[in-house]
Each structure stands twice: as structure tokens, then as C-alpha cells.
């Protein structure tokens, strides 16, 4: 921990905190990115120095990183202080800030952008790396998804020597990437989007699927037996010894029960008894605004963030039957400028309910819904959307910057 920091690293840490505080005070954000940038300029090895001596878990994947990191933090807090990048600043600048802000934390749960996994493996020497899933996301700027899995596989092969991998047995791309590692704990975390893994990532042949099982028809890559899974009935996680750990999550959906299973698997590698950790997960009510419930003029909105096809399909699985749905789509830089992925999402399940669309790219959504035969109303912003639905529950699904716009409307609800 930071007791052993060099004078230079201490100076860098102090500057980092000052820069972050200034950024917050001037209303430019939470300061994680600018703080980390300043600290790393003064001491390029700052992340490595700050991580030294701590027990670190990295959590990466296309969807569920922020929530799983939050669950993991809640679970690890059963045994000690945890440094975490809870603001979703998931690149090295954000990690550096998270560690600098929690000098006394013995543990660190760090959400990691998919493209920085290798850098973080080298800098933070994690005890555990959790790999959730890989699917198409921001195709106009990100690497195509099989290429990303190949990069992970290479990275893990060269840098993951002493690290235990917690990996999703249901995602063939994850299994292929993780299978080069010596120590892997498999979690049956599900896969809501299978179109990016119809083909074996190892050899290009077809994958056969039978229910939850899958295998390559040529090279034999197949679904490993999971040690952790979500119980078929009820809301519980089943551990390696067959014990059930009841979940009482406030967060909705199958995908969050799977995130909980991953968090319990991670926590148990750190020596936390899952029976002690599971109740802590139910205290998580929202994650940086995701799943937050807000009220205006008698409309009770639940806010769901969905950034890519898998995320939208997961959201449609979470929403209650009946209430109106507000969909908001932007295509600013962090969202990706390309909206074509909305054609990978099946909207027909929204048919028959009131659907209101908004966001910068609401016209794209309108065309999309028309093609799927779903009736819709187009409005300028979230205020107009609220006015367009009757009092009562409302489900809101938005992609990244559209979601932030809606959060801003509700005082940046957490």
C-alpha cells in the first residue's frame, strides 16, 4: 500500500488529488480522469506503485462491468476497505485515481475497459481477473469482437501467470480467451446475444448449441463445467459445493443475478464466505444511476442503461409488462457514431404497449420501430416523454450519453 511510496509517487498522488478536487469544484466531472492524467505525468509508474501490495481484482467485458464491480466491492467490504472506480472511469487514469483516493484500502475492485486489460494486468498484478462477456459494441471505433477476444487470449497467455481467472462459461469468446490460463473458475453467467459467437473463435467451424451447452463441431472447444451458476428456480446462486446462496437483489433481471454469481465467485477467492457476502449485494439499489427510480408529476421512472444490442435485449428482459416504455438514442462520440446496431435488436416484444422515443437519433429509432411494426410516438426530450405518458410506472431505456442526459434532468441521480 501507499506507505511504501517513493517521494516522487507521493508528490504525484498529492497533485492527482488536487487536480481531481479542482475538476470537481469547477463542475467538470468527478475528476477521476484529469487527476489520474496529472499523477501519471509526474510519475509514469504511479498506477503500479499504488497497486503494489494490494489484493486487486480486475473486472472486464462488454456488459455488466460497472454493476459487477459494485457487487464485488460490496462483497469484499465484508473483510476490509476496498478501492474502486465507482464512477465508471475504467481506463488507467481512472484506476490510478481510485487507488490514490483510498490509500488505506487493502483491496481494490477495478472495472477495466476491454482494450486496457493487458496494460492493467502488467501494472496492477491482480490476484483475480473476471471476464464477463464479449459482444459487438461501438463498432465504428472499437475493435471487432473476435479480434478483441484474440488480443485477450494473447495477453492472458503472456501476463496472467499467477492470476486466477473468473470467466463466463456460457460465452464461447470468453472461454476461448480464458482457456489459455492455468487457473480458471467458471461461472454460468449466461449469454443474451449469441450472434457474435455462431462460429468457433478457435477454428472457424460451427458451434452446436443444445440448451445451455455448446461445442465446436470441429476442434472440440466446448462449454466448461461451471463451478458457479444461477439457480434455475427462485433467486439464488449455487456455489461449487452445491450450496445455495439466496439473493434478494434490488436490481432487476437474470443478467444481474448472473453478475451477482460472478461477484460471489470473486469474493470467495479473496476468502469471503459467500453466505456472508450474498446479503450485502441486496443493499445495492442503483449503480451510477443505472436502475435508479425517480419520480416526476406522478410518473415513476426506472432508468435502464443499455449501450449495445446485448444490453438492449437484456433491458427488454428486465422491464415490467404493461407500463409505457421510453427509448432514448444518441450517437455521440462515446456512444459510437454508427446506429446500425439497432437493427440487431428485436423490438417486436414492445408491440402493443405505449412506446415513446427521444434522443438525438430518435428518427433512427422511429424508422426501426416502423419496420418492426411497433407503434410509437416521437418527442423532443425526456420532459416531453414524461408528459406523453400517464401517471404510474414508466420504464426508460437509453444508451450512454442519452442516459447521462436523463440523469442530468434528475440531478445526476445515483
Amino acid at each position, binding site marked *: 500500500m501507499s506507505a511504501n511510496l517513493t517521494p516522487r509517487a507521493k508528490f504525484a498522488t498529492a497533485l492527482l488529488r488536487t487536480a481531481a478536487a479542482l475538476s470537481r469544484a469547477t463542475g467538470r466531472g468527478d475528476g477521476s480522469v484529469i487527476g489520474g492524467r496529472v499523477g501519471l505525468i509526474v510519475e509514469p509508474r504511479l498506477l503500479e506503485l499504488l497497486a503494489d501490495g494490494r489484493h486487486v481484482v480486475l473486472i472486464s467485458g462488454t456488459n455488466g462491468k460497472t454493476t459487477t464491480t459494485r457487487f464485488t466491492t460490496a462483497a469484499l467490504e465484508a473483510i476490509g476497505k476496498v478501492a474502486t472506480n465507482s464512477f465508471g472511469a475504467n481506463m488507467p487514469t481512472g484506476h490510478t485515481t481510485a487507488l490514490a483516493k483510498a490509500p488505506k484500502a487493502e483491496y481494490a475492485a477495478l472495472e477495466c475497459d476491454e482494450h486496457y486489460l493487458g496494460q492493467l494486468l502488467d501494472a496492477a498484478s491482480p490476484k483475480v481477473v473476471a471476464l464477463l462477456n464479449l459482444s*459487438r459494441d461501438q*463498432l*465504428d*471505433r472499437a475493435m*471487432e469482437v*473476435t*479480434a478483441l477476444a484474440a488480443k485477450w487470449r494473447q495477453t492472458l497467455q503472456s501476463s496472467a501467470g499467477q492470476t486466477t481467472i473468473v470467466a463466463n462459461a456460457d460465452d464461447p469468446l470468453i472461454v476461448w480467451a480464458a482457456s489459455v490460463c492455468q487457473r480458471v473458475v467458471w461461472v454460468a453467467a449466461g449469454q443474451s446475444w449469441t*450472434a457474435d459467437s*455462431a*462460429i468457433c473463435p478457435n477454428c*472457424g467451424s*460451427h458451434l452446436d448449441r443444445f440448451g445451455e451447452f455448446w461445442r465446436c463441431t470441429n476442434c472440440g472447444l466446448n462449454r466448461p463445467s461451471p463451478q458457479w451458476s444461477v439457480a434455475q428456480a427462485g433467486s439464488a446462486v449455487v456455489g461449487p459445493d452445491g450450496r445455495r446462496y439466496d439473493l434478494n437483489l434490488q436490481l432487476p433481471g437474470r443478467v444481474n443475478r448472473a453478475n451477482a454469481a460472478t461477484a460471489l465467485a470473486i469474493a470467495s477467492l479473496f476468502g469471503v464466505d459467500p453466505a456472508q457476502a450474498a446479503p450485502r449485494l441486496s443493499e445495492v439499489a442503483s449503480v451510477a444511476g443505472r436502475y435508479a427510480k425517480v419520480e416526476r408529476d406522478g410518473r415513476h421512472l426506472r432508468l435502464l442503461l443499455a449501450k449495445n444490442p446485448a444490453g438492449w435485449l437484456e433491458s427488454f428482459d428486465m422491464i415490467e409488462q404493461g407500463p409505457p416504455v421510453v427509448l432514448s438514442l444518441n450517437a455521440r462520440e462515446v456512444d459510437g*457514431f*454508427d*446506429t*446500425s*446496431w*439497432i*437493427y*440487431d435488436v428485436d423490438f417486436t416484444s414492445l408491440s402493443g404497449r405505449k412506446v415513446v422515443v427521444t434522443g438525438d437519433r430518435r*428518427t*433512427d429509432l*422511429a*424508422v*426501426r420501430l*416502423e*419496420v*418492426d*411494426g411497433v407503434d410509437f410516438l416521437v418527442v423532443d426530450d425526456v420532459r416531453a416523454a414524461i408528459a406523453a405518458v400517464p401517471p404510474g410506472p414508466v420504464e426508460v431505456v437509453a444508451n450512454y450519453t442519452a442516459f447521462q442526459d436523463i440523469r442530468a434532468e434528475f440531478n445526476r441521480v445515483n
Partner: protein
Amino acid sequence: MALSTLRIVWLYPDLLSTYGDRGNLLVLAHRARARGIDVEPMQVRSDQRVPTTADIYLIGGGEDGPQAVAADRLLQDGALNRAAEAGKPILAICAGYQLLGSSFYANGRAYEGLNILDLRSDRGPSRAVGEVAGETAPQLGIGPITGFENHGGRTHLGEAVQPLARVTAGVGNDGATEGAWAGHVIGTYMHGPGLARNPKLADLLLGWAMGVDPSQLRPLDDTWPEKLRQERFGALSGAQ
């Protein structure tokens, strides 16, 4: 209109379906059904035979590895070449477009294409990513086109094809032209998907499939697609 059911084949979604390519199938089916035409969408995986009896063939975009595998399987299968010879409409996007030519570049080397369109593709100096737009030939009757492109290749047209459009924004084939067509075969770098943003292009394919001039198809209420087109063209003129 002799067709009782319009059979639309979407080729190899397991290999080539990266940028919302399903959308082109959905848009064609939607526009046909809105005119009272029955549609049978057929998704054909790369381990299945390509049907010879379909009315429209669609093939989408993808990464290098799947593109090379798709070209190899289509060459062995032969049915797409026969469909082209029989004058069946074919719409090919991005990687699917490149593999209709004589050769394309993937995995660091050249591969043999299907030779359906007189063109060849190689690697460009940089990846072309962003909005693409162009003016199409008047005889196509579809007006300006708008889409989103994302490709590393450049395509060089031979004498037996016409460019689909003259580029007004983006890169397309080479910064000057975008896409290609010959007979009833169209190739383009536009996803977006292309047919959602260019409903007249969708109707051109439907007209070809049914043996009628697209102007004879019952007009549809295209308020939303038209608004989307104006927004996309407007975003380009605002950016320049």
C-alpha cells in the same frame, strides 16, 4: 406480378452480419408486406446449401476471417453465381460486396472472389469510417444515397460495372465512387442499414424481383425514412 410469395435469402448471417445487416432483410420484408405481398425470409447458414429458387439474395459485412471462409463456401456452392446469371437481384454489403469481385484482400493476402461483379478490392491507406453519401446514376431512379461505412479495403471497378454512386461525402470505393452495379446485382459499402436509409433502393430490388418497374409499386408512407434521410444529409452539409 406473378409471384405468390417473395423468397428473400439472407446469406451466411453466421459469418457476415456485423453492422445491422439483418436490417436489409427486415426492410425488404416490411416494404413487400405493406403492399400485400407474402414474404418468406430465409436465413441460410454457411453450412447449408444456397437455394437456387429465391427471388432476392442478400449478403452482409464481416471481419476478414469469416469473409474468406464465406467466399470459399460460396465458390464451392456455386448457387449464387447461377442466381446472378439468371438475373436474380443480389444486394451485397461491405465484405459481401468485396467478395463478389475477382479478388479481395483479407488476413494479409489476396483471395479469389466470385467474379460476379467486374471489380477487385485491396487494402486502403486507412480505415474509412463514417457517414457516406453519393449521387446515383439517373437511370436507377433512386436519387441520392446515404449510409454509414466502416471498411479498410478499397475497390477498383472494371469496365463491365457502373459505380452505384459518385461520392459526395465519405470514401466509398476510393473517395470518388461508391459501390457498383451490373444487371440486377448491387454492391455497396453502405450499411446503416442501407435499405432503411434508402427506401427507393429497396423498392428497386423489389421491382427487379417482381419484374415490374419500381414506379408501379404501390407508394408507401415514407415520412420517417424521408425525415431520417434529410437529417443524415443535413448532418453532412452542416459538418462541411
